[in-house]
């Protein structure tokens, strides 16, 4: 509960500092709409030539696009800015200030910077998802919606843990920004069902850079094509990665020397 209050507090600070630059909201909204238009345009062109894409109906791929924006928005809102800040503060030695605070340091570094304008991506994602759901209509049952919620949560946890592990590498290797760029460019591939990709690429997108769990798996849940084994696997992976990233973070902190502070 206290953690939620902390998160809310950081959000409030983010809102306050960004409200000074209100024009940025319109720029960001414009860019988000442009991206959404691109995604929808791509879908329109593809489905002008075919009825199904690797067994996926148009509305199911539309739901996938919604989830892609939603999760991408969460990454850009909280995960990416906070992790970039972490890497920066490890290099500059300013992590000291965080470590001396009474709250859990991992929590603090995970919510330390909020890019509130990325909320536009989250809202657009919800909008697209809502449209896709109404068009899929009655075919989504209650247990599918529940499975979707669980899969989406597991996907976000997996992405968060993955980013934390990458960012924690900065305790050993000072310049790791470039690794983050890899994730961002690979995330693009999550806009389409991973089942389309050849086996080697599907493997990479599932286990090397776990994008499949963030977008395709929740969409499969909505489409009612998710086996309970896969759902359990996603939840298990989420818990495992969360624990691993926690241990990794602890090990990283041990190495931190605050050299330049």
């Amino acid at each position, binding site marked *: 509960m206290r953690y939620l209050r902390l998160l809310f507090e950081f959000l409030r600070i983010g809102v306050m500092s960004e409200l000074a630059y209100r024009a940025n909201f319109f720029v960001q909204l414009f860019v988000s709409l*442009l991206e959404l238009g691109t995604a929808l345009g791509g879908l329109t062109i593809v489905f002008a030539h075919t009825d199904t894409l690797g067994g996926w109906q148009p509305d199911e791929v539309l739901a996938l696009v919604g989830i892609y924006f939603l999760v991408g928005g969460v990454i850009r809102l909280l995960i990416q800015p906070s992790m970039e800040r972490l890497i920066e503060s490890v290099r500059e030695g300013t992590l000291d200030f965080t470590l001396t605070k009474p709250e859990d340091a991992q929590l603090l570094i995970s919510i330390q910077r909020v890019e509130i304008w990325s909320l536009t991506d989250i809202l657009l994602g919800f909008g697209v998802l809502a449209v896709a759901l109404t068009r899929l209509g009655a075919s989504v049952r209650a247990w599918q919606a529940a499975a979707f919620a669980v899969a989406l949560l597991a996907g976000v946890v997996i992405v968060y843990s993955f980013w934390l592990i990458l960012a924690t590498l900065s305790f050993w290797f000072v310049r790791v920004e470039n690794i983050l760029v890899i994730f961002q460019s*690979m995330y693009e591939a999550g806009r*389409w069902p991973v089942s389309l990709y050849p086996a080697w690429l599907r493997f990479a997108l599932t286990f090397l850079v776990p994008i499949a769990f963030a977008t395709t798996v929740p969409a499969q849940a909505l489409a009612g094509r998710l086996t309970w084994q896969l759902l359990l696997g996603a939840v298990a992976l989420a818990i495992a990665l969360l624990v691993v990233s926690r241990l990794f973070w602890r090990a990283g902190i041990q190495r931190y020397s605050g050299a330049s502070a």
Partner: protein
Amino acid sequence: MKGLVDIYVQQFKTTLASQLQYRAALFIWLIGHILEPLVFLVVWSAVSRSNGGSVGGFSTGEFAAYFIVLMIVNHLTFTWIMFEYEYRVRQGTLSFALLLPIHPIHSDIADNVSYKLITVPAMLLVAALLGVAFHPTFRIVPWAVAAFIPALIMAFLVRFLVEWTLAQTAFWTTRVNAANQVYFVLALFLSGQIAPLSLLPAPIQVAAVILPFRWMIGFPVELLLGRLTPVQALTGLAAQAAWLAISLILLRIVWRAGVRVYSAVGA
């Protein structure tokens, strides 16, 4: 002329040396260049397969050939100047370039070409691996392969000049990101990156003929794959020449006006 050649040779040496310092960053850039065409290759292959092996005049193997060649052409012609210029203007580092007795575009061209020299072997290797994975079908038309070389050079020049001109927007606003985004979206649809242009709706195809994007990427790709008639090839080369002339004139006008409003903020 001799002086210019010497300057280019010297510029190649310095940029090659400096870029080889940052090898990791160099190759991480490539991931995006490989992934995007790869994603569309996969998507269109799936479309083709669910339609009995061909869509809109492209078989599955021809889609593979199209996107593999597109990957190479896009990489060879791409520039990063639109990202970099805003920084130069905002930080005032452009001031140093202005002090030199030579137009700053020359060092940018040399920079770009030397980056390509380093990265092209890697891209060709990736293309070969994708060839093994996706079984592209190539139809070799000798005259078209020969015409591809000038078309590719013209495509590079047009794209470089257009993007260098657009990069000058940074003189007037510090918020160039949104403008860049518009350009990239237009390029995605109109240059043939998202799909071969013949698969797009008719109005978009008309726009693609008029605007420069197709001539920067799609046209050399279609030419190399032997999908154009000799008349279409000649028309395309003429369109490239026209855009080259237009972009040269625009560049001169915009550059002169831009330098005048430049105030070296932060320098």
